[in-house]
């Protein structure tokens, strides 16, 4: 684990392993998710991997009624909207994610601040596994 580059490639590899890995700057302690190769606070490149616990709360969200072709192919549309949002982890960092298990047809019922738990959605694309991070209430 220690030898992986602090990059999106490594981040996605970890997701395939059901691990949500961020990184922490050894210089100033700043935490990043996805990992960053350079600390944007102190410009150090000395990072270490940190596994996120996966608990957080909803910081912003939307219920999408008109999605891109890829989401339409998954069966989402005006009658079956899907929810995406920004989730803030207990550790303090935020991430963009799909949010599941909410009443997307009545988005007024969804509240910023709701507690959420991360989960991993595995998809096979050709020969490759691809994992999406999602959250559920």
């Amino acid at each position: 684990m220690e030898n992986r580059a602090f990059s999106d490639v490594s981040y996605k590899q970890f997701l395939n392993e059901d691990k949500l890995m961020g990184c922490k700057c050894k210089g100033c302690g700043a935490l990043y998710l996805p990992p960053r190769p350079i600390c944007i606070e102190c410009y150090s490149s000395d990072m270490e991997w940190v596994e996120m616990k996966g608990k957080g709360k909803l910081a912003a969200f939307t219920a999408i009624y008109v999605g891109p072709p890829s989401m339409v192919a998954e069966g989402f549309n005006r009658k079956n909207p899907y929810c995406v949002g920004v989730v803030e982890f207990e550790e303090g960092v935020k991430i963009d994610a799909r949010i599941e298990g909410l009443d997307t047809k009545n988005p007024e019922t969804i509240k910023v601040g709701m507690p959420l738990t991360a989960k991993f959605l595995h998809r096979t694309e050709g020969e490759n596994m691809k994992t999406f991070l999602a959250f559920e209430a």
Partner: protein
Amino acid sequence: MKRRRKLGRGVAVVGVGMTPFNVYKDKDSKDLFVEAFKEMLVSVDKGVDPKDIDALYLGNFTSDFFVHQGHWGPIISDILGLSPIPATRTEGACASSALAFREGVFAVASGFYDIVLVGGVEEMSKRTTEEVAEGLGLALAPYEMQVGFTFPAVFGALATAYFAKYGASREHLMNVTIKSHNNAPLNPRAQFKLTIADLMNQKRENAKKKGEPLPTWKDEKDFLRDPKANPPVAWPMNLYDCCPISDGASCALLVAEDIARDFTDDPLYVVGLGQGSGKGLHAAKDLTCFEATRNAAQEAYGMSGLKPEDIQFAEVHDCFSIAEIIHMEDLGFFKPGEAYKAVENGLTRLDGPIPINTSGGLKCKGHPVGATGVAQLEELWEQLRGKAGKRQIPNKNLRIGGAHNLGGTGGTCTFTILERR
């Protein structure tokens, strides 16, 4: 500590031109830019010889993807008869032509050139709505597209964060929409020239003709609340919170301040220039503001020595209703959490103390993305020179206007201040 930004040589705008923004099935990007260019030539009071133009900067965002043609700088310099002058394309998503303007200013201010053409063009309507969504999605921050965000969705999410923090609601966003629709019929170049009230009447008439039951909307907000009339796209962004798909082109002629009076007795001076970059939703410290706009404002106010209260009117990037509200706060026109109340109180109306988007905004004027930045400056030109016709701001001493352009989900923002002396 960074020093105050200044240009070594002043720059003035001495001509502008744009196509009406609309859907053009029989015109391509070249045709549109030629049209804007010819209008610009006419706008230069004392005339300009195209042979004297030193360089071209062109903003364009999506043509690689939508038209399968990149490298538009030389295509446009060729069709205008300007080759072999330098022709540079800038791309900052929906702020692409504001970047072209800025590079044109730097090129003149550097002393290297005296006369520079800047502009933007976009050809979007020949694609399906899904293709347009996919193409514009190229400007989302990397992790946003992967989880299914669309552009309306990003602004929908920002709206929920803003609502939660400041107690605003969809009702407040409707005030933005109604205001834009009130300005647009006064702008002959706007894509949508109907007020919300006009639209309601039109729909009532249609229902009457078809013998369908008449809609029972009490007022404009009642119409906007009706999910059949105004369906959700990415809640809380509904159809009337979103700008349309448009084609169009815009351009402006920049010259060194020291030669501006060779072109017109009434040049507009570039007194403030600002730009900033942002990080995307997940890395933003605060989801109710745009750090890129704040940086742009700081640069532009710093250069000009002006304060937000000195800006008499502004075009503010309203790709979605919530964007206008947040940006007005970032630009310092209102305090954080106050802009939605200001709109409610009519402060940003054409006859208010700080009219915003007198053109109808992106919402009603249209938003051919690469053309928008310079088209906003065209609105400043018309207002500052008193040529805005029915939508002329009723302020006898109009001198200073601002234009704010955004690209992506806050990735690129610019703020430009023009002054009439």
